[in-house]
C-alpha cells in the first residue's frame, strides 16, 4: 500500500537521537525495514543506527517505515520515493526486487541495500554485503581454544545464507584449530558437509525461548562455547551461558555484545561484528556528498566492515599465545594466505 505523498519529513525519531549540526540540511535519507522491524536488536536496528549516526553527523533529515508483510515492501519503498527521499536504504535481501524496481523507475534517487548485492549491478544502487565468515573463522578458532569439553556449538535463526555464513566460518575456524593443534574439537549445530544444522523452529529470529531450548540442547551435548546466529533470539544462548554456573560462554553476532547486551557481559568472550551501521552511514554520506557509487561494498576484516570484537572481561582468560595466533590468522586472511570459504 502506498500512502499518499503528503508527508513532511519525520522529526520524532530524529529528536530522540540528538540534534544535528547547525544548519540542518533538507537532504532526506530514508530507510525501509524488512519484516523484522527496526526494533529487532539485529540488522534492521543496526542499519537504523547507521542512518541515525548519519543524521547527527551530517545534519540531514531522516524518515523510516517498517514493513509488516513481505507484500508491503514495494509499497513502502514507493512511499519513500513519494516522500522525495534523496537516498533510500533498504534492509535485507527480501527487499531486493522492490529496491531494484524502484531504482530502475527513479534513476535520480540513490539506493543502498543491506545484505544484498545484485548480479548485474544497477547504476544507482549500492549493495552492502559482509563477509562474516572471516571473523566467524577467528571466533571458531578462539572457541576451540577455549573449550574444555572438546565440543563447541552454534545455532541459527533460520537457514538463510546471511546466517549460515557465520556458522560455516565458525566451523572452519574450529577445523583449522584441530588441524594446527592436532586436536579433535567437535562442532554441534552445524554440519559443514551437508551445510545444515540447528535452527529455531518457525524461522524465528525473535523466539528467545526457542533459542534457549536449542542452546540447552547444544550444552547438554557438551558444547561449552556457543555462537548463536539468530538476531535477537541469540539472547537465548547468553541466558543459557549465564545460568550455566560458569561452564558455558556464548558469543554474540552483528555488534559487540559486551556493549549492546551489557547484562550478559560476563559470559561474552567476544562477538563477531558486522558493521552495518558504518556501511550505512558511509553510503548516506557518499550520497550527501555527491560521491555515491554503485560499487558493491563487501565488509571484510581488511576494511573493518566485519571484525572480531575485543575480549573485554575475557582478556585474562585467553592466553597470549592464542591472542597472537588469532592476530596472525587475521593477518593471513587479509593477506589471502588463508581463505575462508563462504
Amino acid at each position: 500500500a502506498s500512502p499518499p505523498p503528503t508527508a513532511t519529513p519525520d522529526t520524532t525519531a530524529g529528536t530522540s537521537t540528538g540534534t544535528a549540526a547547525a544548519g540542518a540540511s533538507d537532504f532526506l535519507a530514508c530507510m525501509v525495514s524488512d519484516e523484522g522491524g527496526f526494533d529487532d536488536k539485529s540488522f534492521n536496528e543496526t542499519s537504523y543506527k547507521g542512518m541515525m549516526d548519519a543524521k547527527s553527523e551530517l545534519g540531514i533529515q531522516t524518515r523510516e517505515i517498517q514493513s509488516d508483510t513481505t507484500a508491503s515492501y514495494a509499497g513502502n519503498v514507493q512511499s519513500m520515493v513519494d516522500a522525495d527521499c534523496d537516498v533510500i536504504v533498504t534492509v535485507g535481501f527480501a527487499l531486493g526486487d522492490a529496491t531494484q524496481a524502484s531504482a530502475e523507475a527513479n534513476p535520480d534517487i540513490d539506493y543502498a541495500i543491506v545484505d544484498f548485492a545484485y548480479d548485474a549491478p544497477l547504476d544507482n544502487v549500492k549493495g552492502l554485503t559482509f563477509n562474516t565468515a572471516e571473523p566467524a573463522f577467528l571466533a571458531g578458532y578462539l572457541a576451540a581454544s577455549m573449550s574444555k569439553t572438546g565440543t563447541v556449538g552454534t545455532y541459527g535463526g533460520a537457514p538463510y545464507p546471511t546466517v549460515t555464513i557465520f556458522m560455516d566460518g565458525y566451523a572452519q575456524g574450529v577445523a583449522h584449530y584441530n588441524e594446527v593443534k592436532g586436536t579433535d574439537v567437535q562442532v554441534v549445530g552445524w554440519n559443514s558437509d551437508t551445510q545444515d544444522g540447528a535452527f529455531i523452529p518457525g524461522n524465528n529470529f525473535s523466539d528467545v525461548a526457542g533459542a534457549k531450548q536449542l542452546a540447552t540442547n547444544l550444552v547438554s551435548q557438551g558444547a561449552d562455547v556457543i555462537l548463536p546466529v539468530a538476531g535477537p533470539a541469540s539472547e537465548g544462548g547468553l541466558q543459557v551461558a549465564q545460568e550455566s554456573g560458569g561452564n558455558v560462554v556464548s558469543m554474540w553476532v552483528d555488534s559487540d555484545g559486551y556493549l549492546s547486551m551489557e547484562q550478559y557481559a560476563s559470559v561474552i568472550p567476544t562477538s563477531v561484528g558486522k558493521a552495518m551501521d558504518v556501511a550505512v552511514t558511509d553510503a548516506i554520506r557518499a550520497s550527501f556528498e555527491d560521491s555515491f557509487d554503485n560499487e558493491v561494498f563487501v565488509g571484510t576484516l581488511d576494511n573493518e566492515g566485519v571484525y572480531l570484537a575485543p575480549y573485554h572481561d575475557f582478556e585474562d582468560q585467553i592466553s597470549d599465545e592464542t591472542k597472537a595466533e588469532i592476530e596472525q590468522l587475521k593477518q593471513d586472511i587479509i593477506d589471502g594466505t588463508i581463505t575462508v570459504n563462504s
Partner: protein
Amino acid sequence: MAEEPADDARRAALRDRGRRWATTAGSILLALLVGAVLMIVSDPDVISQYAYLFTAPQLALGASWTKVAGAYSALLAGAVGSPAALAATAWQAAPLIAAGLGVGIAFRAGLFNIGAQGQAIWGSIAAAYVGFAWSLPPVVHLLVAVVAGVLFGAVWGGIVGLIKAKTGAHEVIVTIMMNFIAASSLAWLLLTPAFLRPGRIDPLAPPIQPSAAFPVIYGQLHVGFLVALVAAAIVWWLMERSTIGFAIRAVGSNASAAATAGMNVAGTTMVTMAISGALAGLAGVMYALGPGANAVATPLSLGLVGSVGFDALTVALLGRSRPVGTVLAGLLFGGLHSGGLAMQSLAQTPLTLSTVLQALIVLFVAAPAIVSALIPKVRAPRRPALVGGEA
C-alpha cells in the same frame, strides 16, 4: 397462489436489516473510540500532559486530539483518501475476500477451517512456481498459474476433509497442524534449487514473469480484485442455486438429517474443504501474482501471504459467511490494512492498532446488545449478525 410472506414479516425483515447496518456502523464507531483511548493511554508523551489536567486541561486534551486525529486522518486518507488509496485498499481486500469466502463456505458446512493460512501458502507456492518456472503465452500463463494455485489450495484443504471424513479427526486440530507444515514446507522449498534464483542462495524465489502477473487496472488495483468479485458471485450461485450448495448447507445445518435424506456427508465434507481450500489458495494466488505498488509482484518468500488465513476468519465472521457480506467485510478490513500502513508512516502510530480495531469491530458486531446499550439510538437486530455453523 400468492407466496409472499405477510407484510409485517417483510417489514420486520427490513427493520432487522436496517438495525444490522446500524449496529455495524455503531460497532465501527465504538471500536474507533476504544482505539483512541488506547492510543492516548499508551503514549507516554500524551499521558504526561495529563499531569496538568486540572491546571491546564487544554494541554492534555490538545495532545490527545492531535494524536488521535492525526492517526485517524492518516488511516482514512490511506484507506479511501485518494484514487491511489482506494486502489491500495482493493489490493489488500482481494485476498481477504477470496480467503474469507473459503472460510465462510466451510462455516456453512459446519466446519471450522483454521487452515486457510496453510492453503493460501500452498496456493502462493504453486502459482509462483508456474509464474516463474514455466514459459507460456501471456493469457494462458496467467490462467495456468491461477489454476495451479487454486488446485494446490484445494488439495491442501481436501486432505483435511479426507482425514476428517475417514477418521473423524477434529478438523480444528488437523488444520492447525497443516498450517505449521505448510509454513515449514515453504521454508524448505525456498532453499531447494528449483526455487532458488540462479546463482544465488537467498531464500527468495525468482520473480514471476510478467505474463503470469495479474494485469494492472489502476495503481495497485489489478485484475485479481475482479477475480475475487467473480469468485464471490460464483460462491453465491454455488451456495444458493446449486445442488452442491444445497448439500453443503444441509450437511452444515443437520448432518444426520442430510445423511438420512441420502446425501453423502463424508463426501460433502471433503468437497467443502476442497472448495474452501481452493478459495484460500486463490488468496495465495493474489499475493503471488498481484502486482504491488511498483507494478511488480512480490517474489515468493516466507511471509508472502502474511496472516491472511487468520484475517479471513474475521472477514467471514463479519460477512456472516455470505458472499456479499464477505466482499464488504473484505473491503473494510482491506481499508484498515492500507490505512494502517499510512497511519504508521504518516502518524507514527503502530500498525498493530488496525489489528485491534479489526478485532473490536467484529466483537461489537457479534454482541449487538452492547452496541445498543452504549449508543442509545441503535437497536439490536433480532437475529445476531454472526454465524458459526448455521446455514
